[in-house]
């Protein structure tokens, strides 16, 4: 038995929809990850999604440290989030830098990425990505932590389901692919800023995010502009869902 009044819901959604432009699923997912960070008080959080060949790719992270975690796993094909995706289960580590399961990660990680937990995000019961959180010091994860993360991942799954219902799977996939592709542009912009201003990766990423936020633009757009190039055009623009 449902406990939702569809008529009341539609009336309210119609009001919410009025005079607002669609912002796209990727933008919403990014905001959702920012909320998980604040909700649980973790040092950072991020999302990875799988491509067609089941390779996990970095989608976004709440800060540069989290970006290093996702980048390191994407580069080496190993890590707690890769394991969470492959095993379709929660995977945690007290200290990812000392974990013998993933020895290749240490050299690629920001030194303040220590305790890590990853849970799968599923669609139709099949894992399609992972929600990842980290702490900046070694952390003993409790079962209540992973239960809460599973519950949060479930909310993300519902958001994906809602988006798929309306946008068709292909468009959603295009939006996620677009976001994945744009990571490359952001990486290159960070490298450019590091070289030009003698910054660390952390300083460059933080500065890029701040400038984007201050100018109410997406990091990816600003990164493309810095590099004097346009973003990928072959896929749908997530700001203009068709």
């Amino acid at each position, binding site marked *: 038995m*449902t406990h939702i009044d569809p008529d009341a819901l539609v009336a309210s959604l119609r009001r919410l929809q009025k005079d607002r432009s*669609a912002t796209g699923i990727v933008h919403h997912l990014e905001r959702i990850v920012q909320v998980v960070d604040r909700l649980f008080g973790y040092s950072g959080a991020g999302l990875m999604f799988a491509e067609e060949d089941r390779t996990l790719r970095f989608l976004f992270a709440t800060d540069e440290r989290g970006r290093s975690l996702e980048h390191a796993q994407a580069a080496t094909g190993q890590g707690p989030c890769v394991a969470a995706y492959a095993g379709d289960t929660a995977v945690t580590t007290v200290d990812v830098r000392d974990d013998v399961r993933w020895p290749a990660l240490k050299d690629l990680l920001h030194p303040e990425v220590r305790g890590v937990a990853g849970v799968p995000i599923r669609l139709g019961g099949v894992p399609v990505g992972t929600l990842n959180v980290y702490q900046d010091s070694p952390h003993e994860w409790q079962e209540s932590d992973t239960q809460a993360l599973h519950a949060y991942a479930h909310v993300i799954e*519902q958001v994906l389901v809602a988006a798929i219902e309306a946008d068709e799977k292909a468009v959603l996939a295009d939006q996620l692919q677009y976001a994945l592709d744009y990571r490359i542009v952001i990486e290159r912009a960070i490298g450019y800023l590091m070289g030009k201003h003698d910054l660390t990766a952390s300083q460059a990423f933080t500065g890029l995010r701040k400038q984007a936020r201050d100018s109410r633009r997406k990091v990816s757009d600003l990164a493309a502009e810095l590099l004097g190039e346009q973003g990928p055009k072959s896929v749908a623009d997530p700001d203009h869902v068709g």
Partner: protein
Amino acid sequence: MDASSVLESVLIGMADLFGVDGAALMLLDEEDRLRAVGATDDDGLLLESAQESVGEGPAIDSASRCDLVAIRDLHAASPIGYPHLAAYAAPVHAVLSVPLIEGAELIGVLDFYARVGHAWGPAEAEAGSHLGELLVIVLQVLAESRTDAPFSGQ
């Protein structure tokens, strides 16, 4: 899965995350009236429909103040409780009402509730606010996902 099913599933997930007995939602409609939209169970529906019909309650106060309203026990005497409302929603005792803000605009109120009296602490109030933020995002996705009306700006 339709919007109602998604929303119900999200509310259940939020109640689980928050560790409370249930969650219920009131949203402003096109005439700016706060309407009961749904809940995780019958007690939550009672709480919301009672507020809509009697015109008082923590969600209504939360909407008018645009602020959190934390009630230890609805059954307590006024002004600490809402005894008139409690008569219509007897199983519900503690309520935390969280205003839902999109941009700078109120769009509704999310109620978390417990069947026993409970003093909501600052950490719970903060968590409730964050879950409110999360629900606003979910509602935006649902609004954008509606296929019976075109998006503006296209």
